[in-house]
């Protein structure tokens, strides 16, 4: 039996009551696609901070913006939409227990859907003007429903490493509808273009208007601002064998 990991504390600064939540997570990984897309969505929808995740294994630092002290991993809310944003990558050694603890909390909120956002490493990204977007769902009916609603391609073969893969695995095991939306992306350069494609599909799935023009217009500035997070995230990605996403699973027959 797996031991309970006590290094994660999820605090609701404003009680998150209700059910049928849709939870979007944007932990930093490939091309920071998930972080850029989730932050953009939270910002455009005017989501408000309602809690934070305290992780014992994170370095003892605080984030300060415009003189305001921020938690490193924050939870935002608007109506039944929750977004989890992080200023730091989750250390490789705690990805598994962290994902389980996070999923315990999400499950307690009786979620309708969990949406993970990420980039899928594409070595040829420089030659691609419009990155392709793929979806991977925790069950076949959900995948079919999404395909019919949005025409989004299914992620068929490959590996998903790190927190995105672990949340999806927990979603399958617990019978919680969970999807991973990924777009072709630079591996370790921030990729707002790829994030914009992901946002377009999230807006289709959630049936909300999200104009990605402001995101594309600020792409250069974003890339500059996110260089340091990308450096740190690249190092974390080595620890969770993110390079596996460039491989194909073994097939014997």
């Amino acid at each position, binding site marked *: 039996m797996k031991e309970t990991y006590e290094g994660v504390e999820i605090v609701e600064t404003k009680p998150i009551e209700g059910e049928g939540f849709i939870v979007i997570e944007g932990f930093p990984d490939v091309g920071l696609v998930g972080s850029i897309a989730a932050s953009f969505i939270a910002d455009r929808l005017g989501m408000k901070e309602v809690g934070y995740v305290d992780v014992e*294994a994170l370095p003892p630092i605080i984030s300060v913006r415009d003189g305001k002290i921020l938690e490193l991993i924050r939870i935002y809310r608007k109506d039944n939409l929750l977004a989890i944003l992080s200023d730091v990558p989750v250390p490789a050694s705690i990805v598994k227990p962290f994902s389980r603890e996070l999923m315990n909390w999400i499950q307690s909120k009786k979620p309708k859907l969990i949406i993970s956002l990420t980039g899928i490493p594409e070595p040829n990204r420089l030659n691609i003007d419009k990155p392709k977007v793929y979806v991977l769902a925790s069950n076949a009916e959900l995948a079919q429903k999404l395909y019919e609603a949005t025409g989004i391609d299914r992620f068929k073969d490959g590996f998903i490493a790190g927190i995105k893969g672990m949340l999806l695995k927990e979603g399958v095991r617990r019978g919680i509808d969970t999807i991973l939306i990924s777009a072709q992306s630079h591996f370790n*350069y921030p990729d707002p273009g790829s994030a914009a494609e992901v946002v377009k599909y999230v807006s289709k799935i959630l049936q909300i208007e999200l104009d990605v023009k402001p995101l594309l217009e600020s792409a250069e*500035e974003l890339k*500059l601002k996110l*260089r340091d997070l*990308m450096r740190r995230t690249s190092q974390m990605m080595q620890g969770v064998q993110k390079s596996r996403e460039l491989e194909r699973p073994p097939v014997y027959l």
Partner: protein
Amino acid sequence: MSYRRKPLWRILLDEFRRVEEEMSRIEDEFIRRIKEAEGMRGCITPLHNLYESGDEIIFTADMPGSSKEEIDLRVGENYIRIEAPCKSPIRGERKYLLHVELPVEIDPTSVRARYKDGVLEVVARKRLRGFRIRVE
């Protein structure tokens, strides 16, 4: 006082974390050096990657806010050097500066480069010396 032996998986996990902390310390030192150098020189060290593919090396650098006309790219047999302005509407104009030693010798006359979507790509043929051996 009671003493309980740690299970093996716990020992391994603790060891993994110790190694990770050590790696993290080394990496932090690496990033500190980059940031201090940037602070001292007022230059930006772009994120960059170097790949070897068959007879070629492929080098890329993420340099948003520059333009192909203003990139000063110099290449020798064993190095790539880039100097270019970085224009940011918020932070004003700064400069990219990067010198990378190559792991293999290249033919500087074979180099081709392009700048697309803020990424500079440099492709060069390796300088290969040797003999062709007949395989029996």
